[in-house]
Structure formats: structure tokens, C-alpha cells
């Protein structure tokens, strides 16, 4: 099973974590200026890459902090882990 290097707690197993979607995902606003296309893109449309993806995970049964992971969706290899507050990690194609 997957194993993550939580930036706060160290190496822990899959059942302690929850996936939280691709990042970065910028919430558009204010609502009156957001087109319906942009709002739909925020809610639904995703890259869904076959390969490296930047995503966030929650250490739900641990420190309850969110963090960012770069993972390969084909091999499940985890390439990097960083804090939410860190700059967005590079994804080398």
C-alpha cells in the first residue's frame, strides 16, 4: 500500500491519508465577475494526467495537515512532498 512522507509526521501508511484533488486549483472570485465557463472549470474540469500529477493529501488520522505531493499516476511512485505553504513543486514531464 501507499506510503507517504508527511512533512510533519514522517513516513506513514495509506489508511491515514485522504486525497484532495489536483493543485494548484485557484478559486475564482468575486462571483459576479466569474464566467460560467470559468466556474465550471473550477468545479469539474481537470488535467487528470497519466503520469506525474501535483495533488494535495490530508494526513487525516495524524496531524490533520494538508500537504502537496507529486505522484506518478501510472506507477504510484511519489516523487516529492512539500508543505501547502511551500512554492508549487516542479513537475518534470
Amino acid at each position, binding site marked *: *500500500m*501507499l506510503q507517504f512522507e508527511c512533512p510533519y509526521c514522517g513516513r506513514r501508511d*495509506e*489508511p491515514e491519508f*485522504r*486525497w484532495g484533488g489536483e493543485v494548484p486549483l485557484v478559486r475564482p472570485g468575486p462571483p459576479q465577475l466569474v464566467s*460560467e*465557463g470559468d*466556474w*465550471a*472549470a473550477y*468545479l*469539474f*474540469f*481537470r*488535467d*487528470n*494526467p*497519466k503520469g506525474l*500529477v501535483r*495533488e494535495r493529501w490530508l494526513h487525516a488520522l495524524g496531524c490533520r495537515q494538508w500537504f502537496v505531493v507529486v*505522484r506518478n*499516476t*501510472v*506507477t*504510484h511512485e511519489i516523487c516529492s512532498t512539500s508543505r501547502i505553504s511551500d512554492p508549487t513543486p516542479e513537475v518534470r514531464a
Partner: protein
Amino acid sequence: MRFSAFALARNALTFHEQWPKLWRSPRPQSKYDVIVVGGGGHGLATAYYLAREHGIRRVAVLEKGWLGGGNTGRNTTIVRSNYFYPESAGLYDLSLRLYEGLSRQLGFNVMLSQRGMITLGHSTHQLEMLSRWANALNLNGVDGELLTEAQVREWLPLLNESTTARYPVRGGLLQRRAGIARHDAVAWGYARAADALGVDIIQNCEVTAFLRDRDRIVGVETTQGIIRAPKIGLAVAGHSSVLAGKAGFRLPVTSYALQAFVTEPVKPVLKCVALSMATGVYLSQSDKGELVVGGALDLYPSYAQRGNLPTLQGVVAGLMELFPCFSRLRMLRQWAGVVDVVHDSSPIIDAAPVKGVYLNCGWGTGGFKAIPGGGFVFAHLLATGRPHSLATGFTLKRFTSGALIDEASAAGISH
């Protein structure tokens, strides 16, 4: 050649040396009227209906691996049409009705077994949802009846005893026309029939890029060369975003691994298909005797076609809760597919944002039951350029307008 018991007997005399190919292995031509990308159930069914219903035979089905080798070869084979919203009921029931005549129409036994499916309710709230659902079915013109706990136990005598169960069974919703079919047979049956009508099925042919001419797509680059067509239908399930990316647009799809497993074969022990609203586990018994079980998604995007133990353990634990007597059976085989999940668990059958490309995706964990219906309406869209009347709600536009057809929340389960 028409398949029949006579044909079988006749060929037995010649040691089965005279059977013809089920389909050809043609080299791709340079141009077709329609290209269907994806040689799974949906792609093959689409090609068949294009030829049969619309007389469009210059069709190529391009499959990057072996036909029927993706989700069609990996699912838990359940067929049903007990959906809540009229749009869904219409489409899935078309599919079920097509399944009912499919073996004869294709001349290939898809082993449809309409043994019934019971959705189990375990609480007052769930029974109320089942009641709402049963009445919706009846108003949608689909068969569905509520069962009391006693009636459920007549169908499924091995269910956990009420007094000790964590999730006691309180009742159920039965669709009698639901059941199972042999997944490989569906793919092979459609492939054979489509091929006989002139469709070229090109295996080991992966689309690597799209050919553009100004603002439209006019063909594909593949591992077997360039093939042109004015219309290209994508029926690639979990890989929809990959192809969309090549054509320059995104989809409201996330791809996940959906695990399933079978036990060793045992003598008949399960009369119908069962699905639990509490545990999310669903199971049936194949004609070979194996219990076929599925349940949850591994909840992170994956193209690996493999999931991990925690999810599998959760599904097995859910099965043990329903049928504690199956605990001593053994898991024999286990696998996963790549499913294209969409927020409202309803498909996308629509023109793509790029001219020349059409989409049939978003079936998520429920694509197998929809193969005939999905293929039928997708063929209509490709042939006429207009959505079939049963598919008008399943557009990309609904994600912008908010007119989602949210079967997941309607039924409390996501497939």
C-alpha cells in the same frame, strides 16, 4: 457462419478445424467515414450500430491493445436499469432491452442471465430511499419492486442474521430483469458482428496524436500510420482525458482504479445479484461458480489498473458483514480497471469542444450495463450529428449550466 448447436455438432465431426475467424485482422486504410477510438464494449457496439442502424460501414475501430482488453474485460458483469432519473432510466433501460435481444441479434451467446438484482436497505432512512427509488422506477416504466426483510431472505437465505449484524437487512429493492452477462462475450459478439458488416477492427493501434486542419480534427496519427476521417468518436473510458489532452481540451473526468475479485468456484449458492447500500459491496455468482465481488474505488487518481490492500480489505470486510458464511472461501483472482468518474455519475455523450471529435465517456464504474445503449446512441450522434432523444441530457454543457443528472446522490451509491 451462423452459430448454432447444429454448427457445433457439424464441426465436431471435423475436429473443429473448419471454424472461420471471428473477425479479420485488416491493415488500416488511409481514410474512413468514421473512426472509433477504443475497442472495448462501447467502441465495438458503436461501430456495429453505425453499420447496422445507419448503413455506415466505412468505419475503423482503433484499439491500442487487444479488443475488449480494457474495462470490458475487467468488470463485475452486472446489468441493470434501475436508475432514478427519467433520463438515466431511459438510456439504461434501452441498454437492457438491447441486451435482452442481443445474443440472437449478434448470433453469439452473451450469456445474459436475468436472475434479478436486489439493492439492500439497512436502516429506516435507506428503506425510505428505496421506496422513493422504486416508485421512480415504476414511473419511468422500469420494473422495480420493494421487498420486505422476509422476502429478501427468501432470495438470499445466507444473509447475516438481523440480531447480530452491524447492518441488519431491513428490506430491499428488486429489479427482476437485472442480472449478469459474460463480459468477454459481449465484446467478442459485437466485434464479430461489426466485422461481418464491414467494420475494420484494428488492434495494437494506438492513437498518438490528432491531425488538425485549421479549426477541426480531420484524422489521427497512430502506431500504424495516419488515418483520416471527418468524424472521430472517442470511447476510451479511463483514458478519455489522455486523448482529450492530445486534442487540446480538458474533461470533467478523473480516472481511478476500480478493484474486483473472484473466489474459487463453488456450487450454486447465490441466486441473484446483491448490492448493499450500507457497505457499498456488490456481488453475484458467475456461471462457472465463482463469486464475483466489487465495492469501493481506491480514492486517488490512477492509471495503474491496480489498487491496494486497504480498499480491498474494506470490500472483503463489507462482504463478510453481509455473508459471514463466505469467510472460509478463498480469493482466487483479483484485478482492477481504470474508470472515468464524473461528478454526477452520469455519462457524457456529446460533441467535443473541438470540431470533428465526439465523446462517449464518463460511465465511471457503470459502463458494462450500458454497452448496447451507449453504443446505440453514440452511433446515432456520430451518424446524424445530433444527440439521440434518450441522450439529450448527457452533454458537456450540463457542467456549465448545473443541470447535472446526479444518480450518485439519488441512489446513495456511486455507480
